[in-house]
């Protein structure tokens, strides 16, 4: 498997560290439902058999965290984004919403 780091270019699997589902979002610690929310956030996974948005860390490369969209049945990668950009995007949307 090779991942096209948006900064470094395409590199082999062994340069990266995997860190699971990128769709779960860290909840608000102050919310009254925080205990349940954090349990879900940390432990429950959809673990779909097809397309999966997931976090990878370019540990042997540029140290960027990445959001990779990958089909876990075929290992085909359709998209690689900078996690920082994704996170900032989501946060700004979040703000707009409220």
């Amino acid at each position, binding site marked *: 498997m090779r991942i096209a780091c948006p*900064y*470094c*270019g395409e*590199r*082999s699997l*062994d*340069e990266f560290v995997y860190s699971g589902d990128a769709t779960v979002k860290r909840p608000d610690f102050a919310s009254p439902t925080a205990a349940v929310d954090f349990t879900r956030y940390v432990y429950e996974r959809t673990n779909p058999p097809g397309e999966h948005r997931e976090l990878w860390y370019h540990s*042997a*490369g*540029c*140290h*960027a965290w990445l959001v990779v969209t990958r089909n876990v049945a075929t290992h085909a990668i359709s998209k690689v984004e*900078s996690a*920082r950009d994704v996170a900032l995007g989501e946060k700004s949307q979040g703000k707009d919403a409220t």
Partner: protein
Amino acid sequence: MADQGLMATSAFLDWHPPTVPGLALERRETLTIASLAALKGKKDALLAAIRSTYGVDLPQRPGRVESAGLAFVWAGPDQWLAISERGQNNRDLEVELKTALAGSASVADLSDGRVILRVSGDRARDVLVKGVPVDLHPRAFRPGDVAITHASHIGVILWQVDEKPTYELAMFRSYADSLAHWLFDAAAEFASAR
């Protein structure tokens, strides 16, 4: 007593390169190295500051630029290494850049954190290919290109200096001997028969 100074020692404790026609291995340990990272939202300011002070543009991709013996090497998103010989007047890039870039970048001294090994000659590519998993073919990698990767399980920042070709590998200091050991093994195949 306190002012006797201290002697710098090499990070390569067991240095015995094989003699290989077309391959030169050289340790570069008299450098001053500083890391710069743009402060949030200050990247343009940083670029401008570097441009005005040193007359070069910081590479926005894995690349290396040089001006008057001072090289800037891309080291990750919005991060660079500044590298130069220390020279007689013992240049110190941390001090120099902290003032030059105040308010636009955070600067840290890495002069000793990284050691640099220069690999050059017709054979350089044949040897590096045995540990470096990036494409170094001239069509894919040119002077001025940079790759952050690993060589034989050891993290390196690698760049090409010239067409000879000459490459430089920057690694964390404590790995120097292990990396050299691998490099010597990889080169042995081409060593002139003893």
